[in-house]
Structures are given as C-alpha cells and as structure tokens.
C-alpha cells in the first residue's frame, strides 16, 4: 500500500507516540518508524511534527528523556513513557474507542 500523507490531529499523534513507546524506550527516528509500522504505513510522521510533540509531552510529564547510544554508536535522545503517561494512554485509548464507535454508528445510520 502506498503511504498516504494524512494530516494528524495533535491528540491522535500523542496517542500514537505513546502507543509506540508502550513497548519500551526509543529515539525519535525509531518512534516514527514504529508508528509507520503499527499503522501499516498510513502515517508517516515528519520530524517537524514529531519533535514538538515529544518535547511537549515531556513537559506535561508523560514522557521521560535520556541520552544513550544508538545502533550506530552515535548519541541519541531516548524517550520512555512515565506512569502518568501510561495512565494518559489508557484514558485516550478508551476515549478514542468511544468516539470511533459513535462515528461508525452515525455512518451506518
């Protein structure tokens, strides 16, 4: 499937980032690759959207960052979910579930 450039709402991007990090810590490029993976190529997150979101979520307290060594032995900034972030992910997932269910129903009506 050819990747489609779709505009992502901020809240949606947050959720995707947190989902990507649910498995463990990752650096910026890794996060966007993972999002591509789990959305089966639908969403390709540009760094212009990724970095602001990452930093904002860190300020909110949903993510923690630390410097570490990447695969090619370069320094990279790694992000991971905090407890608060996990709770936020849960909340957001449930909310999304309700909204999509409602929209589905609306479209079928």
């Amino acid at each position, binding site marked *: 499937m050819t990747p489609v450039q779709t505009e992502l709402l901020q809240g949606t991007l947050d959720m995707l980032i947190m989902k990507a990090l649910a498995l463990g810590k990752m*650096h*910026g*490029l*890794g996060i966007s690759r993972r999002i591509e993976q789990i959305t089966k190529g639908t969403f390709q997150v*540009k*760094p*212009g959207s990724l*970095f*602001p979101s990452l*930093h*904002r979520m860190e*300020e909110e*307290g949903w993510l923690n960052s630390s410097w570490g060594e*990447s*695969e*090619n032995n*370069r*320094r*990279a*900034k790694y992000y991971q979910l905090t407890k*608060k972030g996990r709770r936020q992910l849960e909340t957001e997932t449930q909310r999304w579930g309700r909204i999509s269910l409602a929209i589905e129903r609306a479209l079928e009506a």
Partner: protein
Amino acid sequence: MWLEKAIRNWWRQWRTDAELDAEVHGYIELLAQEKIHSGMSATAAQREAKMELGGVEQVKEKVREIRVGRFLETLWQDIRFGARMLRKNPGFTIIVALTLALGIGANTAIFSVIESVLLRPLPYDHPEGLIEVWNTYLPSVPLGGLSPGDFQDWQKRATTVSELAAYSWVQQGANLTGDGDPQRVEISYATSNLFSMLGEKAVAGRLFMSEEDRRGAAPVVVLTHRFWQSRFGGDPGVVGRAVILDGLQYTVVGVLAEDSSLLDSSDLWMPLGQYPDNLSEHTYHQIVGLARLRLGVKIAQARAEFEALNRQSAIAYPAQHKNFGVVVRPMQDPSASQIRQSLLVLFAAVGLVLLIACTNIVNLLLARNTAREKEIALRTALGANQGRLVRQLLTESMLLALLGGGLGIGLAAAGVKFLGAVAPANLTAVHEAHLGAAVLLFTAVLCLVVGIVCGLLPALQVRKTNVNIALKQGNRGSGTLANRRLHNLLVVSEIALALVPLVGAGLLLRSLHHLLNVSPGFRTDHLLSMHIPQAVTPPAQLSKLTPAQQRQLTEKQSLQFLQIVERVEGLAGVESAAGIDVLPLASHLKQASRFVIEGRPIPDAGVRPLAEIRTVSPGYFSTVGVPLLSGRTVGQTDWSGLDIDINGGMSRRFWPHGDALGKRINLCSLDPKPCWVAIVGIVGDVHQFGLDAAPTYDVYFCGGWTPYLMIRTASDPHQVSAAAAGVIRKVDPALPVGNVMTMDELLSDSVSPRRFSATLTGIFAALALVLAAVGIYGVVSYSVAQRTSELGLRMALGAQKGDVFRLVVGQGLKLTSIGICIGLAASLGLMRLMASQLYGVSATDPLTFAVVSIALAIVALAACYVPARRAMRVDPMTALRHE
C-alpha cells in the same frame, strides 16, 4: 540547596538549545544510516536525510514555540489560580493589599519629590558637558566667585573648554519706574555667551550680542520669562521699548523663553561687560564661572588646566590672588543641595516603613501557608511538581504586590497633592513633583522586589512540608518550632526597624521645639515691614564726592526718611516706625567687615574678627523691641557716622569687664586711612540669619536711607499696610513699596522648612509604629491560636489563668526587649548621619532614646494584651478535645 536547583534549572534551559540541536542532528545521522543500509552512497544519504527533515532550524523553531506556549499557559494557570485563592480570602487579601499600598504609596510619593529635585537633568543643552568654576579661600570660603580680571585672562587662555561664560554672583537691586507702579527689581549680569552656551532661546526679540558686552555699548536688558508675565502681561510689544531703572534708560531687546532655577532668580539680565565697575581688576570675586567642556575632554583635564591657570594668576597678582584655590565641578542645580539632606532622611524613614510592612506580610503569608498545609501536601502526594508549587505561591504574592502597588500609586498621587498643599512655598521641589514615567517605573520595580521578597521565604518554607505528617495532622504546622522561630525573628526585626524612624522623628521634633523657643532678640508681634528702596546713586558718581558732600547726601537722605516716618506715625493704629537696611532673621547675605580695636595688638588680616554692619534710623531699637543694655542708642546726632552701637555678644567677647563704652574700632582697611568709630551704646543680641544660625557681632550706624520700614502697630499689622503705602506714595510717588509682611510671618517662614520635614518624619514614624504594633498583635495572636492545645494542657495540669496571661505577655515582652536593644544599637549609629539636621539636641540624646523605647515597649505590650486575654479564656476541655 534551593539556590542550586534554581541555578541548575536555568543552566538546563541554556543547555536545552544545544541538546535540541544535538537531537535533531542525531536524527539526521540515523536517517542517513538507514539510507546507506538500503544502498545509497554516504553523501547522497546525508543529502536526502537533510531534505527529508525539512531544515534543522525550522524544526528547532517549532519546538521552541511549543515550549514558550507551555510556559505562558502554565503562567496563566498560576495567575488564575492565585487570583481565585485571593478572592476566597478577601479579608487576608485586603489587609495585605492595604498594608502594601501604604508602604509602596509613601515611598512613591517621596521618590517623586526626590526625582523632581535630585534626579532631573539640568534643563540646558547637553548638560553633561557643563561645569562650574569657582575660586576658594579656605577655610572661610569653600566656594567663591571669580574676579573679573581673572575671568578675562582665563577665557583667553583656557583650551579644555569651548566656552567660558559668567554671571554675577550677587544681584543688584534697582527701582523700575515709568509706566505702572514703581517696583523694586533684581538685576543679574551675564556674559553675552552665557545664554547660548546653556541653550537658552528668546521667546520675543533676541538675547545679548557680543558687541553689547562691553562698557560704552548701548544699555540693554533681557527680561526673564516670569518677570515678563508678571509685569508686562506677556506682551511681545515690550521688545524695543525703554525701561527706566534708577533713573537711567535701558532698551528691552528680548525675553527669555524659559526660566531655569539659575535664570529666574532675578527679574532682568544685563550684559556683564556693562557692569558699572572696573572689569579688569583682580580683587573682588563677584562673578560665577560656567564653562562647556570640549568634545572628548574629561572634567579632570579641565580641572588640571584651571588649577594651572589659577597658579599663574597667583604669580602674576600676588597681592590679590595669594591663597586662592580653584574648584571645578559638574554643573549642579543650586536649589537642590539645600534640601538634599532632609529628603534623604525622609526617604530612609519611608523605606523603613515599607520594610516593616513587608515583614508583616511575610508573617501573614507564613501563617496562611501553614493553614493551607493540608491542601499543599495533598497536591504533592498527587504528583505536583514542587517547583511548580513554589512558582504558584510566588505568583500569588506577586499578584498581591501588584494590587498593593496599584492602590499605592493612587495613594501616592493623593499624597503628592497633599504635600503640595501643606508644604512651605519656598520648597519648589515639592510643588513640582508629579508621578511621571520615572516614578512609575520606580513603583513597578518596587512592586516586583516586594513581591519577591515577601513571597520567597514563605514559598520556600512550603518545600519543607512533610507530606505524611501534614496529611495526618492537618493544619497544625508540621515545622512548628522552626516556623515559630521564624515568626519571632520577624517580629524582633520589625520592632528594631520601627525604633529607628521613631528616634529620628523624636530628635527632629525636639530640635524644632528648641528652635521655636529661641528668642529672635526682638518683638516679632504687631510688627509690619515694608521694602521702600530709593534709587541708588551709581558708585562712579559717589566716589567723586568729597567727604563733606557725602555727609550732606547722607543727611538729606536721613531727613527724607524721617519725613516718611513722621507721616506714618501719624496714622491711626501705629505706635512707632523706624528703618533698617537689612532685615534681621532672614538675610542670607553677609554685610560684614573685619575690624580692629584701638589700642590692642593688630592681628593678621585673615584672622581679624568679623562684624555685621547695619544702618538704622533713629528710634529703631525701641520700635522693634531690642533692649538697650547700656549707654545710648544712636540717633540723629550720629548721622556723621562717627558713633556706633554694638550688640551684647560683641561687648562681652571683647570687653569682658563691661567697659566697651567710649572705645573705638576701625571697620575700614588700615591703610591708606582708617575710619575709627566710637561705641556709644550696647544693645541686645539679634538673630541676623535665622534662629538656628550662629550668633554674630553686630555694629549699628545711624543715618542715610534705610530701605526697610518697620512699623509697630497697636492691632493687626495688615490693616495699616494700605494706609502706610498711601502715605509713602504721597511723599514720593517714584518709591516702590514691596515685600509687605509681618515679622511673625517672617519668623514662621524661617522655620517652616524644618517644621515641614519634622512633621513628615513624625507621620512616617507613627505609621511605622502602627504597622509594627499590628505585626506584633498578629504574631502573638497566631502563636496563641497554634498553642491552644498546649495552653489547654497546662491549664488542665493546674496553671492559673494569670499564669497563662503572664506566659503570653512574657513572650511578647521578651521579643520586644530584644528588638528594642537591636533598634537602639542601630539608631546610635544611624542618627549620627542626621546630626546636621539637629538643633539643640545631640544625635545620641539619651532622653529621646529612652522615651521612644519606653513608648514602643508600651505599644508592644498593649498589642499583646488582647491575645493574652484570649489565651486566658481557653477552655482546657475544648482545647484538649480537639487534640
């Protein structure tokens, strides 16, 4: 420790940009690596990666925007939360805001006066390049004028200044006659380059030209703006007209556009070159030098040059110029220096009031934060960032400070108007003060500082909250002991701070009281004075008269004056009248001469005693009420000028055995010819220069025209003034009548500046006392409330109500005594700085210190009284139940 954290945060912010940069570049590296793995060349991969990113700077910019947005958002949240908290406790908010409004408002009001006096730049072009050049004759004359001859020499030779200008040190008086009432005017002389150097412009006509600045040029005058308005109603047609001064005609060539304090002290200006005296001589130091530094020249260089020029003058004219020094300094506002000292004292007093107010508020905030401990502990447990909490509390205190500041500005505006209404008329600075941009900036900065100072300590105390204990015990104060010590420390410092302005005010008020008790030496009640100066004969003409002709002139003038005295004494309500040439109590100008006593060894010229010389008309002493101590008063028989009266002080000093009568002294220079005069009477001492000035030796002559007419009236002096003026005008219509005032008014005017500053300081000291009392009351009440269960326990264990009362009052007394001791120590040191303002009382006067300390102690104890009684009423059962 908190300092470390703050610095670390700030450091982190600074490093964040570097980190961000590293992160973005790291991303590019990883992306490029991916592409290399899939087969691209290294360079192509790098290029592709960079393009995909879309620009490092843009990405960084987006992150930065997010950051700033977050910060502003949280700040807005803090502000809204803080505002809500303040609304929920309106009593607390109002008390704090009012206290701050008082403190900030008072400081703003005083600062506005200081700004108008001390901080405004001089109203001339490029005032930073202007300097004053003075001669000195130490130790008696710290600042004196230049002689015209020296001025001309230096003007030719000075290279560090682009212009050297001068104006006359002393004003000349003259009678302005012609159209309108005759009026006494003051004339100053200026070199033709003075106005242009200062940047002054003419609003009508023109200012002086250099051709007019010499003897023999057409006589011209320039009017000051003020005089132009008052005498000529602002009519531009006055330019080109002639005015008659002392019988001579002068043409008005222009009017000054604006007056500065230098330029508006006189009514008219004339070119210095036309000054009726020898302008090449080097003896009489009668002009003030002003200069403009050349671009790039520093004042130190100019100073060095003038010192060299001064030395050259001393070598060239050894007889006249020996021992003269020179002073070069930046140009200053002449009226500012007088009140600088008292303004600074006021500013210190009002600053202390603000400090005390802040201490009160810190106490209040600490108490309130302790009351909110449970809420704060809860929020911390739920994960709130400690730093955020501190910031939020600080925001609250900032809001309070801004609220207080806003109210304070309103108070200050009213205060400045009030000051302008009650201040004596000669304090122009007070009347010119207004809340301009500089003052508002000062208030804003003050609010900021107050907000931080008041809020920081309580906000940081919050961090010590032990969450567990706070959640369990609730609002009891988990750091009770430390908190209580803090409260006590604040109260002690408040008391110490309040003592200082109280002592200062006490000393100033006692000085005022002493001063008002000083007798001026004559009776000031029912005594009217009027200034009726005759046109002055030009000194050039006078010097041509023989001694016999001079005596005739004196006699003629004396008879003319007697004629007026007779007419005035004939009026209803007038008891007697007489004249003198210089008013007592108010003159600022010395009219004095050094003298030698016949038959005694002659001291060196520089150390001969100085006597004030006055000329009176017959009957002066009885009219004004100066007692005759021995001998007789000078009268009509003494018009020849050979006999004098001296005052008691001079008689006691030089003839301690009381045998002054008949002795002779010489008031002129010894050569070529001395003029010996004989003492025929001794009269009482009179304060010539003000109640607080040093006593003088006075010598009285009789004869000639004495321009101040003194009228002793039976009832209200003002009722006689119109009739007297009418009588005078009938005798000589060309005589100006001015400066009509009673001697009581003159006396009052001479002490009014001192009275004003003493009263203001007293008001601020009272304010400080009230604030300190409120502070003590608050802390002791709070402590009683905190210790309710402890007190209940004590009472249950057998303590009597009286014991509890004594416990609370004892605590208050302990704090008060410590505070007073510290305050006394501080005052002993600080009052010395104020010594020049005091009169008749030393800066360490024990009586004042003792009385003030006792008063403060009584007030403090009274403040403890109510909480102590409340403590007595604690019911042990209820208190223990709440445990």
